């Protein structure tokens, strides 16, 4: 089973990278780009064939390592 984890800074936590990218987009003429956020995508394969079990496993990985929940939120896709 393939797992994909999206990690972003929580809303309200200043994303300076996003701000810099936003200002670069504006400089290129895309003035309508707003609230740019830069995150991370982590993908991997899991041996598990049970979707619920895989989700629980990936959630544990997020809490332990893949995200720092003090500043980041995450979204999991398995399938």
């Amino acid at each position, binding site marked *: 089973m393939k797992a994909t984890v999206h990690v972003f800074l929580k809303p309200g936590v*200043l994303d*300076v*990278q996003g701000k*810099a990218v936003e200002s670069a987009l504006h400089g290129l003429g895309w003035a309508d780009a707003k609230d740019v956020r830069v995150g991370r995508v982590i993908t991997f394969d899991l041996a598990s064939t049970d979707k619920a079990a895989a989700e629980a496993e990936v959630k544990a990985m997020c809490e332990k*390592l893949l995200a*720092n929940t*003090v500043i980041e939120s995450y979204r999991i896709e398995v399938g």
Partner: protein
Amino acid sequence: MKAAVIVFPGSNCDRDCAVAVERSTGAKVEMVWHKDTALPDGLDLIVLPGGFSYGDYLRCGAMAALSPVMREVIAAANRGVATVGICNGFQILCEAGLLPGALLRNEGLKYVCKPIALDVTNAQTRFTAGYQGRREVTMTIGNGEGNFFADRETLARIEGEGQVVFRYVENPNGSVADIAGIINDAGNVLGMMPHPDRAFEADLGSADGAILFQSALASA
């Protein structure tokens, strides 16, 4: 007196820390590799140095916090051994859950490297007792991700408990409440972005950092 400096792949202030502690205090300093599964016996001080452990992969300090040696560091810290994390060491302590909060990228995205004035907010800790009577000290900072963040509730708690130890006189990186260094609630784990290890002799521009190591070992 005995101190250990933990060396991670990518640490680059480990030797600075060893020399700073030795020259400031006369303590014997042992270097401990991150893969070691035991710490030397009878440690009075553990130092997590600055640098770019594991190339800052994933998040600064995230991989180092899971190094084999960190299990022992966490156990020692929980037993009350004085532990200080400087710069990347501070990031590691936060990632390891020994200190609250996290370090974000600097506001303005700049790597900031310069001597900086610090307000000694709490001179009642085992690390800062030697600063009593002095409000302001100077140490060097050198970081790109030194922007301390804690949610409102955590911030209120650490402020209320006197866990903010150092504040920037002029905030260089956007840290919440100008925070440059904090201590755990038990008072034996200190994390700070400024480098006492780069300010331990007058020839370095400041000897204020020596006082921190002396205080930490005087209280051991």
